[in-house]
């Protein structure tokens, strides 16, 4: 009884502080709605990362996902990547790099009016598969491409 009361007080105090933080604009309301998926980002293999992010690692390969990435990365620390999903109702696009220490790199969630398109630059520790997972209508679709990362001579 006592412990329950304590945790109740603790929680309400925390909620109070949080409310203040939100109203002061210190924290966006989003932080309340969807926290950063720590477990998925900490996962050390692709399947575990997908499961961590979506609850299941079962994906269907889709030709409607176009993945633009270099064959050979000029510098593995900055690899330009563009993903276009033509799957109707694309809700999110996730990027995973299979041989990075923690493969999950990013999840982009499409809001109102957003197209299934995203472009960014990522770090790749070595030659690796770049895996894209698209969530649409509650289902998971995927595509992948190998990007080679070489050890440079002078420039690298």
């Amino acid at each position: 009884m006592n412990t329950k009361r304590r945790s109740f007080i603790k929680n309400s105090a925390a909620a109070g502080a949080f409310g203040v933080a939100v109203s002061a604009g210190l924290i966006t309301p989003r932080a309340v709605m969807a926290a950063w998926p720590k477990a998925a980002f900490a996962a050390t293999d692709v399947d575990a990362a997908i499961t961590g992010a979506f609850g299941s690692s079962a994906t269907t390969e889709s030709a409607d996902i176009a993945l633009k990435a270099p064959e050979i990365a000029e510098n593995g620390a900055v690899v330009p990547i563009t993903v276009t999903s033509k799957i109707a109702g694309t809700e999110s696009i996730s990027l995973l790099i299979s041989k990075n220490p923690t493969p999950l790199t990013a999840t982009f969630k499409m809001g109102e009016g957003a197209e299934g398109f995203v472009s960014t630059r990522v770090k790749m520790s070595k030659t690796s598969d770049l895996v894209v997972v698209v969530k649409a209508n509650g289902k998971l679709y995927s595509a992948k491409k190998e990007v080679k990362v070489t050890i440079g001579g002078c420039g690298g």
Partner: protein
Amino acid sequence: MAKSIKVRAKVKGGTTVVKALISHAMETGLRKNKKTGKKFPAHFIQEVTCSHNGKDVLTADWGTAISKNPYLSFKFKGAKSGDTLKMSWVDNKGESDSVEAKIK
């Protein structure tokens, strides 16, 4: 203090193309300091939000493998020239920044 976010947004044929560049170290926590042998602590953006007319058009969760000085581009429908776009980020240390840009 200069803003850490640079945004360019342009409407063409009903679609707004947003391009952003953020000044951030994006430390993985795995890189070693050659002088001390110790690892630089992880310091990276975790959440990016972009909204138009008070509605989120894109939100993103990032890990440590987004490159230093991150670049992000996306597209959305429903905005017109002159509208305001708001973009913000929060990192793992709780630091944050936000910027507003006019859509061209």
